[in-house]
């Protein structure tokens, strides 16, 4: 291999992270703070910046963790797969036993300063562990046995989470599918799994209630049906969906600014956690909502790009899992905000207020940056450096 310094940037000028990915993340964090500042200034009497400050702290912690993570070779996590998987299951079980209840679902462990939502952190942990298990069997990927094992590994936490929080559980399923997809599991297996899934859903939705077994909580079915009949009863289940749609629509092209009454007068419920996107849509209109959507598109594009740059299969699988997690959450949450998806508790990555979600997402970003950095290093040592 011959050195070709003329075609290469000097080592000092090459960044150890993907600047566009960083730009998207910084943009989204800024959007989150600005939105929270506008929508929560009256929420805590006497402290208009309560939520902004706290979200800022979460961002700071998350960013530091992400930077640290991006300097570490993610491949070493593969050795810790049992530990990671065990930690995930343990925390999920812990929540199921001791967790506090928020709006009908048991999701978090209360700690003195903040609460940990195990299901949030579990998303990244599952990606890391599942990718490792997949790499272990990378030579036997075509076998049914491999697929079955992967499904088992992912579905145990997925079902545990689903028992209290349907939406987050679905994120786990999305992770399973994306990792298998990127790994190259055969189409036939996918077809089989989808068929199985269809049967399971039919059982849960129609056969089980007919037999008197309650699988879905009342509030879960309410939310699912309210999506199908959004304006059935504006005072009840469809209320949030209806108010969210009104907020976004009322924003029109350039937004209502300080006249954003849906958010300011609390017609839009849960504006800081479940409906931040509607809040943006009302205040800054199509311009603002479109910009935020573009930032997510940038995030997903860079994620897929990093997937292709990964130095090994493990990196590619982690990147695929993370991109799927982000894409799924963005689509379901924004879809719920604009009234085309049912109401689930899935947060909008980086925009929803909440430490667990923010730090987990930044953790995932840190992993992506690590894969990027490692990919560049590997490429450089092999002389196959490619520009993006």
């Amino acid at each position, binding site marked *: 291999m011959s050195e070709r310094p003329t075609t290469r940037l000097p080592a000092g000028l090459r960044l150890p992270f993907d600047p566009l990915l960083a730009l998207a993340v910084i943009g989204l964090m800024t959007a989150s703070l600005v939105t929270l500042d506008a929508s929560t200034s009256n929420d805590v009497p006497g402290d208009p910046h309560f939520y902004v400050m706290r979200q800022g702290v979460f961002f700071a912690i998350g960013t530091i963790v992400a930077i640290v993570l991006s300097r570490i070779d993610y491949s070493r996590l593969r050795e810790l797969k049992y530990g990671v998987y065990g930690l995930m299951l343990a925390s999920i079980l812990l929540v199921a036993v001791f967790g506090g209840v928020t709006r009908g679902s048991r999701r978090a462990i209360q700690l003195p300063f903040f609460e940990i939502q195990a299901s949030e952190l579990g998303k990244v942990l599952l990606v890391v562990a599942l990718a490792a298990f997949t790499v272990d069997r990378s030579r036997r990927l075509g076998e049914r046995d491999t697929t079955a094992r992967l499904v088992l590994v992912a579905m145990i936490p997925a079902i545990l989470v689903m028992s209290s929080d349907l939406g987050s559980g679905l994120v786990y399923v999305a992770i399973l599918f994306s990792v298998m997809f990127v790994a190259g599991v055969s189409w036939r297996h996918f077809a089989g799994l989808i068929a199985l899934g269809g049967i399971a859903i039919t059982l849960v939705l129609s056969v089980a209630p007919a037999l008197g077994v309650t699988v879905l909580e009342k509030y879960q079915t309410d939310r699912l049906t309210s999506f199908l009949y959004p304006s059935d009863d504006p005072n009840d289940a469809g209320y949030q969906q209806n108010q969210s749609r009104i907020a976004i629509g009322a924003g029109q092209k350039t937004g209502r600014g300080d006249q954003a009454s849906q958010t300011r007068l609390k017609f839009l419920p849960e504006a800081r956690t479940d409906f931040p996107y509607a809040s943006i*849509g009302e205040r800054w209109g199509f311009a603002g909502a479109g910009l935020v959507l573009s930032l997510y598109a940038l995030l997903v594009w860079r994620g897929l790009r990093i997937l292709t740059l990964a130095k090994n299969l493990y990196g590619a699988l982690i990147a695929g899992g993370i991109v799927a997690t982000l894409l799924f959450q963005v689509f379901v949450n924004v879809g719920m905000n604009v009234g085309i998806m049912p109401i689930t508790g899935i947060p909008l990555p980086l925009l929803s207020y909440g430490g667990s979600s923010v730090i987990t997402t930044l953790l995932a970003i840190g992993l992506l940056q690590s894969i990027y950095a490692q990919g560049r290093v590997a490429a450089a040592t092999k002389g196959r450096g490619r520009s993006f």
Partner: protein
Amino acid sequence: MMMEPSQERRPPITPQLALRVAIFGAVAFGLFAIIFFRLWYLQVLSGDKYVAEANSNRVRELRIQAPRGKIVDRAGRVIVRNRLAVVVELDPAKLPDAERKLALDWGQRMSERPTRSKRKRVRPIKIPPIPSDALRARYAKLARVLNTSAGAIHRRVVRSLVLVPYSTIRVKTDVPDSVLAYISERPEEFPGVQVEQTYLRDYPQGELAAQILGTVGEVSPKQLRRARFRGVKPGTIVGQGGLEFAYDRYLRGRDGIQRVQVDAFGRPIPSDRLRDVKEVAGQRLRLSLDLGLERVGQRALAGPLNPGNNPGAFVALDPTTGEVLALGSSPTFDPALLTKAITQKQYELLVDEAQGAPIFNRAISSAYPTGSTFKAVTALAGLHAGLITPGATINDPGCIQVGEAERCNAKQQAYGSVDLTRALQVSSDIYFYKLGINAFYRGGLVIQNWARKLGFARRTGIDLPGEFAGLIPDPQWRAEIGKRELACRKRKKISPQANVYAAGAAGCGISDLRPYNLGDTVNLAVGQGDLQATPLQLAVAYGAIANGGKVVRPHLGLEIESDRGELVQRIERDPARRIKIDPNNLAAVANGLHLAASAPGGTSADVFAGWPQDRYPVYGKTGTAQRGVKRDQSWYVAYVPDKKRPIVVAVTVEEGGFGAEVAAPIARLLLAQHYNQEKVVVQGSSQTR
């Protein structure tokens, strides 16, 4: 340098991975595109709609009721004004779901039942009982304070929920201040109960002119679709009858709006961007009515001249302009009754025929045969057609043969040789029977046509709703009711040969199925038989005689004024039409009418004994209408062609007897009031029809 195969290292991106990443990217692109277009649809294409929804979320609009305009008489004396009253209301949102559901079900069943049934009257569907004991206790508590019953409140709540689902339910109107204080001091004991103030109509003149004023009420959904209520907001109080209805546009005013910004929990949040709309008070309506004259008429009908308190009516017009100076109907009622919800019993008293149906305005809505007062019309028709001349005389032997029947004057009085003037003066039936016979054989419906020209058998166009057109019998009408009678008998399987009384007993009997004949015209010539005219029509016809052929359009409204009394608009109504009457003919008829009221032998001359005929000459005609099994109906019509203050009056009393006996003295009282003369009552002795 060759690449080192390693389990850790994977080869540069494989085609398979490239394909899968491409699919991944395509899915991502598709999802973003879906959201992008949904955003475009919501924000750019339908943004306006959602802005409106957001505003209706945050802005609560409270209606500020505008006071309705006053109604005053021609001298400015107040007839209708407003007063503030306290109403107790219930917030429908604070009612239990069971009550709302009950109302919904009941409304559903009410709307589904057939509105008409061929066989029997449709029974109203009963409102189910109060759904819960808790609610019954709540209603009972309120009912004790309001002096009503829990069941009554429940029924009112259910009806209101069905009619206007989201508006507050008015439980009781016009409660005393003590109740207001009691309820507002104990809000926790009366959940959902609100106390508001509202304007109610107030009638300082009591029962006077009650039938013409009309009522007010919330505009109905049906009315909102009509042109006359265009621009009226639901919930507005509008005129529902009488003058309140006819001049609603001016009296109504415009309700104001108070806008309050609220948050999702209904708490008011101040906003400087919301503008209130100030209410605009209604305009004042000045009537041509003279309250003094109105009072005299009303008292006379209820007084000793009418000992049986028989129903009656009076009308006084200015024959040159059509201004109504007085218009009343007896028995009358207290219009204040209708400002609040009335009980079934009170309502029945108002509409009960046996009680004289006080709510009914006999001056414009009741039509009767008018007796001899119609002779002036017959005379004009005969003169115009050349059937008679002013000077020609006939012999009145007291009785003549008409067709197969013998017809006589009242008491078979024979007047000998009479000309037109004399015939009117003494009210000779024979003269007009002969005229009727000639008119019948001449053909061409001479009398009917003149009656129509003078305003019979059509509405006068007075500015009041509910006017009756009346009827002038003619061959076409006879044929028409004959056809209807046959259809009715066919439906009820009654033989066409059955007589009219038998058919009447079985539910038909509007006609005896005979064709139009001589008797019909002869009856019409003296104002008997099938003729139907309202007192107002008679006044308008005599007005045309008084003013030389102008058939006026009577009106009560005189001026629209601002609420401070400045003139906004004068109400003038052109006469319906002018008819040409030969002055000689007119003079002959007028002469007869004047002699009837002034010269010895005149039917109402004794009634006007002592009246200054030189200053205020009276031209009047008595009438005594025969009404089948009922006693005769007393009529009197008169005019005084005074240059400055002309007047025409028409008075009738059902079952009052002879015209000179009851109606004529009342007319004299009206004239005495109008010309400021001593009110002398002389009951006439003439027993003519």
